[in-house]
């Protein structure tokens, strides 16, 4: 616990696996979030560094999803500060957070069921599309250009995630595993600075989990996207992540490399249970 408060402010940082990750891009400082009398998050601080895969783990009800919702602007914490790219972030609406380059996926898939896969991925580009109503109504000038340019980026993401064959299929017809992938594609299409993944592997079988893990690593590798993810599968978390935050009952009980966290007595107690006296 002590180690966290003395932050390593160096520009880069070498993990135990020998991966070099960049300077801090987002920092949560003493975040407290209450719903009425319930404290969902109690005085939590941690940072996310550029280019790393940061996992947030903890038992059910630990406040992980609430934490992600604070980052993406759904909840405004009662206390504490969110620092993003070296500046304190004022309270904002979720769409403003998205415009700053933070994309996310949901625990329960939140795709646009009435639209095709391609249109869903294209919605990820909406923050970049600025042509006016008049240009669009005539499909001329900037509107037409913009549509093709953004389609190219969307197609790159579609290629990357290997969903070319279903690009014109309505999302409602897809099986669960593919929907998860399309949701990742939509988030990636925004070319985010930070990608938040809320249980990207929930409800998947082993092969699907392997596929998804590979995609997450590839995204991090090829695009250099910073990823913060919540996951329950410990094997996956330990293999994928560079650093792990552990939460329990809204408190932070561990923060460090997967190896550190695994050997942390408090974390072991939280997961296996311990006799309280």
């Amino acid at each position: 616990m002590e180690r966290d408060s003395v932050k390593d402010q160096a520009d880069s940082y070498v993990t135990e696996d020998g991966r070099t990750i960049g300077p801090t891009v987002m920092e949560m400082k003493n975040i407290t979030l209450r719903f009425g009398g319930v404290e969902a998050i109690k005085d939590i601080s941690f940072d996310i560094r550029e280019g790393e895969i940061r996992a947030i783990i903890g038992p059910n009800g630990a406040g992980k999803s609430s934490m992600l919702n604070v980052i993406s602007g759904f909840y405004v914490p009662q206390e504490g500060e969110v620092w993003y790219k070296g500046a304190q972030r004022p309270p904002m609406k979720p769409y403003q957070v998205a415009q700053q380059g933070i994309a996310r996926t949901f625990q329960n898939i939140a795709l646009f069921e009435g639209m095709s896969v391609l249109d869903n991925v294209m919605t990820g580009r909406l923050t970049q599309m600025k042509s006016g109503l008049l240009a669009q109504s005539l499909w001329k000038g900037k509107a037409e250009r913009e549509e093709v340019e953004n389609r190219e980026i969307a197609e790159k993401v579609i290629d990357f995630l290997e969903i070319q064959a279903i690009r014109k299929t309505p999302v409602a017809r897809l099986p669960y595993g593919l929907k998860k992938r399309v949701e990742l594609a939509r988030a990636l299409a925004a070319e985010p600075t930070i990608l938040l993944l809320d249980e990207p592997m929930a409800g998947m079988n082993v092969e699907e989990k392997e596929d998804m893990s590979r995609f997450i690593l590839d995204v991090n590798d090829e695009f250099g996207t910073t990823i913060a993810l919540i996951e329950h599968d410990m094997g996956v978390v330990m293999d994928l992540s560079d650093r792990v935050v552990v939460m329990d009952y809204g408190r932070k009980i561990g923060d460090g490399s997967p190896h550190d966290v695994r050997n942390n007595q408090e974390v072991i107690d939280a997961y296996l249970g311990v006799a309280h006296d």
Partner: protein
Amino acid sequence: MFYREAGDFSTTYAEDQQTFPIKFDRYRYYVVLFVAIFVIPFMVNDYWVNSLFLPFLIYAIAAIGLNILVGYCGQVSLGTGGFMAVGAYACYKLMTAMPDVSMFIHILLAGVITAAVGALFGLPSLRIKGFYLAVATLAAQFFLVWLFNRVPWFYNYSASGQISAPERDTFGILITGPNTEAWATYMFCLIFTVFSALVARNLTRGSVGRKWMAIRDMDIAAEIIGVNPLRAKLTAFAVSSFFIGISGALFFSIYLGAVEVGEAFGIQKSFLVLFMIIIGGLGSIFGSFAGAAFLVLLPVLLKIVGVDWLGWPTDIVAHLQLVIVGGLIIIFLIAEPHGLAQLWRVAKEKLRLWPFPH
């Protein structure tokens, strides 16, 4: 066999994103347009234009407008009649205040004014959804009709409280008033219908359309990918009202000529247009046309079959029409919520593979 994509390759994204990516569809569209512009005007008489073509073209614009709001953006509205009235009265005031300006400008301006009014009544949509929003727009409907009845300025203090369109011409051709030619009014409305369909199609396939559909399908997810919900909903209300205003202006100035607001633009009109898009297909431009055609044609067909051939009394046929429309709406809502447009899509999908479906 005739309808297929084989050999039809898109080599650029622009080609793939056009309105009719399949060649056959494209040619069919050109043929329909050709017939509408170069064949129909030379064949029509007053009866055909007034009982079929004008109401079809004008309701199609209103249906496109309402479809953008309900079908694409998911915001239920029962204020269509009221917004059509805004278009009609705006057009009337403009026509009488500026007699020398072209009718094209008046109709477009009436659309713009309605768009502003529509955006204003769309403000509650940020806070309320579904049934509650429907009730809020219902309030708009009754308020607007009341306003046009009670404030004499809107009907230029005429003794009857009605508004009637003065004679106006465009490029020397009369298009309003009692002495118009059938083909002229038809062409005038056709121009607006084609324009509305093109604009609506362009908007709905572009980024604005995706914003609307994102709000419709899941508003929370829409917000998380960067859609400002207030702006998306208000643009939907404005664009929708723009088209509805145009249709109201045409309905008054070209089709009816004289209007009593409660009768022409009452709550029945709101429901009629809503039925059109439910039967035609929510979230489809083609569906707007199909629904308008269906509900315009149905009474005419019933009259021909029931009254002229079978000799039934007129009132029975009129009631039969209500029964059929009501029944159809129930059937469509249960069996095919996406309406005639979906049937059309399914038929096309089958035709692509026909006659070798495996």
